[in-house]
């Protein structure tokens, strides 16, 4: 045995036994450390494991006490599991394929408290979701000034109208003064009486006198008729003028009312309006939840898709960690390196147990040709009627991945749920029943989602103070508080559009309508209060000019009476002239046989 050391075989055997023994002793700890290290790197926060138990026959692994810290809240675990157990296919393991038929996760709980912080130095990546920049609700400017101040600054159309009427009346009065002077008057009636008396005394003058008297009588009658006609015309014209002014005076009341309403609308409508209330109340929370969801999606992305590239036809896959690259060749049959065919998960929520399963967990979906799908559900839980979460992460074609998720929650009892929006204020849903549905799709980088929430049997209270409003003593804020506290039902809808890196969350809800009604209510209340005062003030302002107007109208009325009086007298005169000198016969007492 010139070239062989037989004792070397013994040493080798001992070394192998020692190595195997060390492996048996240390493998559990090594696996535990590896899971903690890898998990911490992927999640960006501490991942802890109480214990790992590696089995050889059959090959498998049991993990106990897994805790994954929430990177955004280092004092809370995103989830923890009391026990995770799975068996691995031995022959496949020799080919470096980890194929798990069924993985069982028991006692999975979400958002549990930690005893110590699980924060680690954050790796570069998606920025942490902000705490929700609370934009203050900018209540519209709403200050109702003093009535006298309003009248000092506002121009009243009614006053202009009254002034115009007065000017017109004065002008017309002057005109009619002149016209009346030109009209026949009592002096003319006296003249006519004298003429008629003269005619009556001319009876014994013979035929010539008779004929001359008749002619004079006819002329007298014509003169009277002419004067009467001009008086009647003047009276008619004056009547028209007066009636026109009377109508205009009646318009003063309606103009006064219009002025009051115009001013009320101007001073009791909040400037700027109140819009986007839903976004201000629910936006920050919705943005936080969306951002947190996207962050977790990006953290878990390597689980569903491996980074790969191709060189000269062969696929080159960089391992998650380690040196060098692995070149993959065509497999027969093709199989992913890691595949968990079915993971059965038992979630423990405060409401009760929720069971579900996740199928086809592998970073090599293209090889497996089947997408990852998940399905969780529960019914009849404490404080929750039913819950359903389904979806799929389809990366079978890495160039065009499609991820979908659907969540349906029915009859969830909400208690003391706070909605913070206003600076230092918000509202608290003391009690409500929530029905929620969420549908989210991610196609490539394109994100689209709709979330609808219906709250019923609500009891709401305002939390904290509200913005003070100068001048109204918090009138608007008080109305808003009252409106919010009075809500019994509420529908909220959020629409998510955009891309993973640049998305927009548009929120609408009944809150917009409720707030708008509250604002309009406040405006109406202010308007009602102001209307009486303003009407009285405007009436007071118009009273003086109206009094002058009344006087002018009375003047015109007196003129009309004067003309009517003259018309009456001239009418009598005409009657007298029509009877002639002897009660209707010819002068001299001559009677005709016919």
């Amino acid at each position, binding site marked *: 045995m010139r070239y062989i050391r037989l004792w070397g075989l013994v040493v080798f055997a001992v070394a192998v036994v020692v190595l195997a023994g060390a492996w048996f002793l240390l493998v559990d700890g090594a696996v535990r450390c590896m899971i903690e290290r890898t998990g911490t790197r992927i999640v960006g926060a501490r991942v802890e494991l109480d214990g790992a138990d590696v089995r050889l026959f059959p090959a498998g692994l049991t993990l106990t006490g897994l805790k994954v810290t929430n990177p955004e809240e280092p004092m809370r675990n995103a989830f923890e599991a009391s026990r995770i157990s799975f068996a691995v296919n031995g*022959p496949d393991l020799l080919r470096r394929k980890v194929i798990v038929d069924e993985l069982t996760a028991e006692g999975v709980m979400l958002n549990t408290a930690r005893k110590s912080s699980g924060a680690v130095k954050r790796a570069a990546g998606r920025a942490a979701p902000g705490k929700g920049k609370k934009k203050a609700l900018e209540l519209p400017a709403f200050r109702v000034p003093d009535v006298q101040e309003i009248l000092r600054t506002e121009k009243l159309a009614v006053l202009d109208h009254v002034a115009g009427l007065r000017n017109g009346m004065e002008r017309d009065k002057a005109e009619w003064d002149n016209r009346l002077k030109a009209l026949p008057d009592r002096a003319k009636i006296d003249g006519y009486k004298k003429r008629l008396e003269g005619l009556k005394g001319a009876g014994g003058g013979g035929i010539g006198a008779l004929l001359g008297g008749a002619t004079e009588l006819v002329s007298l009658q014509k003169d009277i008729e002419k004067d009467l006609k001009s008086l009647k015309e003047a009276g008619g014209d004056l009547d028209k003028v007066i009636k026109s002014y009377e109508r205009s005076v009646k318009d003063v009341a309606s103009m006064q009312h219009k002025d009051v309403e115009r001013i009320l609308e101007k001073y009791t409508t909040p400037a700027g309006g109140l819009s986007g209330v839903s976004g201000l109340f629910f936006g920050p929370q919705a943005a936080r939840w969306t951002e947190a969801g996207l962050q977790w999606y990006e953290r878990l992305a390597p689980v569903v898709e491996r980074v790969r590239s191709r060189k000269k036809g062969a696929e080159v896959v960089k391992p998650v960690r380690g040196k060098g690259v692995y*070149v993959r060749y065509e497999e027969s049959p093709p199989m992913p390196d890691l595949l968990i065919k079915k993971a059965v998960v038992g979630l423990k929520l405060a409401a009760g147990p929720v069971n579900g399963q996740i199928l086809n967990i592998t970073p090599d979906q293209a090889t497996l040709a089947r997408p990852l799908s998940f399905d969780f559900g529960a019914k009849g839980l404490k404080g929750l009627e039913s819950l359903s979460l389904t979806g799929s992460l389809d990366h079978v074609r890495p160039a065009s991945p499609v991820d979908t998720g659907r969540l349906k929650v029915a009859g969830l009892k909400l208690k003391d749920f706070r909605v913070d929006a206003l600076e230092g204020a918000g509202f608290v849903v003391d009690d409500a029943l929530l029905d929620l549905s969420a549908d989210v799709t991610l196609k490539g980088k394109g994100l689209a989602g709709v979330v609808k929430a219906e709250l019923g049997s609500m009891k709401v209270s305002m939390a904290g103070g509200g913005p003070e409003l100068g001048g109204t003593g918090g009138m608007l804020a008080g109305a808003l508080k009252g409106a919010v506290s009075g809500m019994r039902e509420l529908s909220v809808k959020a629409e998510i559009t955009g891309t993973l890196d640049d998305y927009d969350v548009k929120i609408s809800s009944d809150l917009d309508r409720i707030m708008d009604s509250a604002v309009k209510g406040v405006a109406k209340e202010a308007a009602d209060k102001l209307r009486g005062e303003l009407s009285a003030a405007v009436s007071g302002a118009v009273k003086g000019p109206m009094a002058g107007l009344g006087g002018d109208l009375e003047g015109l009325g007196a003129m009309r009476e004067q003309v009517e009086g003259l018309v009456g007298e001239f009418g009598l005169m005409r009657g007298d002239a029509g009877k002639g000198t002897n009660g209707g016969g010819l002068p001299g007492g001559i009677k005709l046989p016919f």
Partner: protein
Amino acid sequence: MLRSIAKLLRVLNSEAEPVQVSLALWLAMVSGLTPILSPHNLLVLLLALVLRVNLSAFILGLMVFSALAYALDPLFHLFGQMVLTADPLNGLFTAMYNTTFFRLLDFNNSILMGSLLLSLLAAVPFIIVVNALIRRYRASVLAWVERTHVMKVFKASKLYRLYRAYGEIGGGP
């Protein structure tokens, strides 16, 4: 304690022929340059223990080549990737890839392939060169080393006396 150490040193320093030393160094190169936990290193360890090669040279060489590997890894990666993605060898590697034995060996890792292949290709020239260097060292440098003060002090130590005693018993140098 000193006896045990002396005994161990004697064992390690047996098989001191130049070819035994150079073969041990080559085995150390294979093991040191390739990822240490690779399965093929079990075979290397077996060969180092079973074949009559110089164990102290193997241990020393393993340390030296493991340190060198950190610097040479980029070169191994480039060479290994080039070999693994060579079209003419695609068929061979595909067949190997679908064989459990070769999958266990992790042959499709670029650094392992590059370092192992280079170590194997360098086997013959390496052994020849190291062999020649050892002979030259023993002919010229060793005599000078033996005359140094450090060597004289060491040779006067009890450890060395025990080492020589075990060597005479074992029939070694």
